[in-house]
């Protein structure tokens, strides 16, 4: 766990809209205790060998039927199969909070991606899950959401990812398939020595019925739990990531893409805490907005004392296609030691008229030129993804943005 003394120098700039964004104190004390205390109540998904997934339900939970079951890993290669695996959540007696722990055992290198499909089956859906990447393990994980109800809903996901020594995780989270949802995604990552965590986040929503959804959420907000009610109705999606590099030479590479249209609101917070030397991290957050969409980017890279030879980069690029969009960007860097490389930056603008003209002057229509430039803008956020199956899925989603 994180030694809180190491974080005592860290200061986050105040932010008016920080209603949901937990303070460091909250993150470390509250949530960590939560995960420790509730460990017994987690489903445990052990990837026990190359071809089998062992699912242990070690609680007497009303919606868990088997004590233990086995599913062949190869079945998890398609989202369809994994959706059926998640049917356990569809039980009539389900609770609002669904928990599981996925652990990749020591030395396991999973060549096929694991799809985690998080269904929204009721108006306020909470998920809490952990990923335990044990020593020298490797996995590709693709998290996606599925909305199974017609009503507007709030979809809240919390995950806790532990990266043990020399482990490597390529994690893609994508929430493009849910509309009329206020989506909040909280992620707390702990990286040990020499571990590598590649995080890609895609939010490609097109909330055509957002106004409808907003009204419904407002009407329902009285019964929403406190932690979530703050987000109603202003936030349509919130991404809140805290990453602690607690081992030497730990590596964290984050790429995020928000494509938002219509009257939507995105809030994006990502803090990286370098607490040991020789670590590397990079943040690339790209936002592309159209119509009257809004976005906030607020991120911090903290390099603690004695964290020499750290190499860290933070970049936020925003592209606007409409005069009605609103973009707020607040990149932050706090460095408490010498002998580090650290950069940060932010750009906000419109599509370059000269680039559009060049493409059009060769016979490409205005709409197609604009689409090509959008694709060019987002392409950089796919560098981390090496798995071809996942890459194809993401490409299909990005293509859909313009249709």
């Amino acid at each position, binding site marked *: 766990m994180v030694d809180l003394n190491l974080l005592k120098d860290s200061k986050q700039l105040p932010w008016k809209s920080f209603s949901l964004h937990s303070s460091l104190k909250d993150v470390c004390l509250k949530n960590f205790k939560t995960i420790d205390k509730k460990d017994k109540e987690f489903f445990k998904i052990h990837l026990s060998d190359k071809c089998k997934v062992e699912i242990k339900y070690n609680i007497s939970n009303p919606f868990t039927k088997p004590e233990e079951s086995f599913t062949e890993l190869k079945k998890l290669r398609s989202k369809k199969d994994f959706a059926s695996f998640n049917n356990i959540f569809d039980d009539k007696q389900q609770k609002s909070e669904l928990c599981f722990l996925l652990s990749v055992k020591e030395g396991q290198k999973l060549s096929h991606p694991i799809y985690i499909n998080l269904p929204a089956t009721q108006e306020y859906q909470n998920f809490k899950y952990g990923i335990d990447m044990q020593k020298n393990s490797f996995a590709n994980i693709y998290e996606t959401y599925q909305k199974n109800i017609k009503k507007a809903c709030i979809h809240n996901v919390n995950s806790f990812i532990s990266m043990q020594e020399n482990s490597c995780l390529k994690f893609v989270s994508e929430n493009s398939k849910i509309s009329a949802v206020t989506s909040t995604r909280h992620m707390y990552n702990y990286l040990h020595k020499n571990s590598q965590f590649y995080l890609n986040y895609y939010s490609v929503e097109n909330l055509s019925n957002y106004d409808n959804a907003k009204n419904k959420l407002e009407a329902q907000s009285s019964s929403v739990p406190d932690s979530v009610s703050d987000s109603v109705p202003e936030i349509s999606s919130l991404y809140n990531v805290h990453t602690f590099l607690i081992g030497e030479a730990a590596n964290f590479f984050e790429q995020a893409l928000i494509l938002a249209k219509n009257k939507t609101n995105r809030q994006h917070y990502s803090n990286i805490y370098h607490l040991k030397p020789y670590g590397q991290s990079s943040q690339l957050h790209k936002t592309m907005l159209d119509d009257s969409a809004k976005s906030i980017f607020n991120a911090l890279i903290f390099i603690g004392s004695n964290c020499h030879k750290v190499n860290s980069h933070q970049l936020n690029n925003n592209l606007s296609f409409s005069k009605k969009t609103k973009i707020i960007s607040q990149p932050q860097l706090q460095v408490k030691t010498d002998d580090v490389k650290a950069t940060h930056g932010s750009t906000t603008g419109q599509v370059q008229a*000269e*680039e559009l*003209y*060049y493409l*059009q*002057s*060769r016979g490409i*229509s205005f709409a*197609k030129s604009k689409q090509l430039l959008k694709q060019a803008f987002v392409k950089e956020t796919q560098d981390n993804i090496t798995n071809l199956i996942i890459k194809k899925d993401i490409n299909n989603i990005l293509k859909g943005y313009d249709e």
Partner: protein
Amino acid sequence: MLKITDLHASIDDKKILTGLNLNINPGELHCIMGPNGAGKSTLSKILTKHPDYSVSSGSIEYTLNFEKNNLLNMDANEISLNGVFLAMQHPVEIGGISNFQFLKEITKSHCLHQGVAATNDEDLKKIILNLAEKLKLPSDFLDRSINDGFSGGEKKRNEVLQMLLLKPNLIFLDELDSGLDIDGLNIIAKSIKEFQNSERSFLLVTHYHRILEKIKPDFVHVLYNGKFIKSGDYSLAKKIEDQGYSWLI
């Protein structure tokens, strides 16, 4: 093929062209010369509908297959699809789109406009690589982003490659010779000469005589203060090379 009549144009309320007239027939090669800031590049950009420039009066009539079109009423992509091409002085760099993807898109757009089936990827690649070899462009340029990291010479050769690929009827070459070494100039001049025919017309903007030695123009015009102040044949370019513009302005 192209008839410009009394053209007045400006950028940010600054008048650039002040009553320009020009007539280009099929198969002719015209050259525009003039001191810096005379409006040479502006003219080629106006002819291809650059968004920064506005035309206050005049007309630009373009005739293709006996059909007359007013370029001022067409979008930039329509102008291109109708056989007009501008090889730019400073082609932009666009990261994230590979040259091949770009060339594929422009070929597709033109094929669609002409109502013919687009060339498949494999054949298109062969055609492009043949042209690249002719222009001495490295074969890996297809995988690189558009003009990204290209040298000045490579950018110009990439422009010529697009011209050879699209086979336009009316071509504007905006200072194609600037930034080119002697070998690059020879390669490009040879390609243009081979590309010339009795139906195809060129409007070449240049500061230097050296490219005109290789591609002999039929007409040379001197642009100053937004209009042509002198027109003549190739000998005019030679005289300007020797004496500059002081005897004209």
